[in-house]
């Protein structure tokens, strides 16, 4: 059986203004899968996510989500289709309390009951957020802010979650926790496109992976295949010859 894609990025060239960062990128995320995007700094991983969200200038190609072409849509309309984004560096709203950050994530949820269910779900996943819900979000530690950022993304009941560097700057113990959380989220049926510097964390959790280099896909394969390839480590560190 061929798995059904939820997201297909097809031969996309995109960047900021006249400058192209992505040079002919094609990525596919199947329904219910975790797909990871690997690569060293500055190869265009975050730009890929921003391009999916309509926040870059696309010159060529198309992006199909659940059969809908996202190219003509505004960012908020793309989010309304069920794509949530957990940005690099947390990017929580520092002027809001923890609870208010979560409410902002549920902006599109109209039913009060659904909102309460989602709130319950993220409080179960991250009890610390419930304990400190009325505090200003900047009072949280780095790891807790990452949890808030993930929780905020989950409040919108996404079908596809775009996760950008969730383990960045976290202690090893927390990295394991993030890994567990990614699996938990995926088990509830959410497809995930994961960007990671930590290749082991990424490939341990992913079904499929892409390796980016200089704005293009250098290598792709199932997680098992990629783990076995010596080239992964080489290219990943940016010292390999492709």
């Amino acid at each position: 059986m061929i798995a059904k894609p939820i997201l297909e990025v097809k031969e996309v060239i995109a960047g900021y203004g006249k400058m192209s960062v992505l040079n002919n990128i094609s990525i596919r995320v199947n329904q219910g899968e975790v797909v990871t995007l690997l690569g060293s700094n500055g190869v265009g991983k975050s730009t890929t996510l921003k391009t999916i969200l309509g926040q870059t200038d696309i010159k060529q190609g198309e992006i199909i989500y659940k059969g809908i072409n996202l190219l003509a849509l505004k960012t908020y309309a793309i989010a309304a289709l069920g794509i949530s984004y957990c940005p690099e560096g947390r990017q929580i709203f520092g002027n809001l309390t923890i609870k208010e950050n979560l409410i902002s994530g549920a902006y599109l949820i109209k039913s009060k009951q659904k909102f309460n269910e989602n709130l319950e779900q993220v409080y179960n996943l991250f009890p610390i957020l419930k304990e400190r819900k009325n505090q200003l979000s900047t009072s949280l530690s780095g790891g807790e802010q990452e949890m808030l950022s993930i929780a905020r993304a989950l409040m919108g009941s996404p079908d596809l979650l775009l996760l950008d560097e969730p383990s960045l700057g976290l202690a090893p113990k927390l990295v394991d926790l993030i890994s567990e959380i990614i699996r938990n989220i995926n088990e509830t049926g959410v497809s995930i496109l994961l960007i990671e510097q930590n290749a082991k964390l990424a490939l341990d959790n992913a079904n499929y992976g892409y390796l980016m280099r200089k704005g293009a896909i250098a290598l792709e394969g199932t997680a098992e295949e990629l783990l076995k390839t010596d080239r992964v480590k080489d290219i990943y560190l940016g010292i390999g010859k492709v």
Partner: protein
Amino acid sequence: MEYFIQQLFTALGYGSALAVLAAGYTMTFGIIGLVNFAHGEVFMIGALAAYFIIQVAMLPFWAGIIAALAGSVIIALMIERVAFKPVRGVGMITLFITSLGASTVLRNTTILLFNDRLKKFPRPNFLEGAYKLGNLFIYKRIVFVVLITILICIMLVFLVKKTKIGIAMRSISYNINIAQTLGINTEMVIIIVFMISASLAGISGLFWGILFGSVQASMGALPVVYAFIASILGGVGNVLGAIIGGYIIAIGSSLLVAYLPLDLVGFKPLFAWVIFFALLIIKPSGLFRANIK
């Protein structure tokens, strides 16, 4: 002592007009970093619209209120479309310059069309007169504007703090790109903020007419500067702070004049500037927490 209390009470009227103007000012300042000098012209258009409906067209007072609100909102949306939307995201300085341009064009066009003479603003009967409390005069018009201001203040704080749209406004002021990725229609929220801000300017214009009994085409020039200072004083984007800031400036400058020798009353505007520079030196973030980074 009685003199002091009388002066203080009278300043509450002027303070309410500044407070409501500053509340609207700080909202657009907070959400898109807009230092909007055309806000004074929105205020003026609201007052003049009410003047034309009540004094010239001889329609009842409530029709004047509707005219003030409608006039302000329409002109503010036009300014947003022409002067702000095309340059949004380019930076605060550009927005500031286009707002000055819009302000100059609107003020001078209005002066050309209707001249700049004071126009008598008719007060409705229920706002005429005063209650007497000992030797104090409690003017009905001041009681009226203060009560309306308190009501507006409660509504605004509730809107910004407790409602979903208020949380959306604050998230946009912090990081508009992230707010969009959460499905917040930022364009729509910004337009709503402009409409609320303009309505407040219109109400402030009405207050001005009720309190001072006259309006004119250049009336927005000074109040907008005070509204700007009040919103800095209260912490940018902080509605309650701006309202308090408005009262501080009005009460401070009124008392200053009340106690200065007669030949120095021209120094009335000095108070706001002294406050402003003291603030920039001592606490540039404002007295209360700002709503933006």
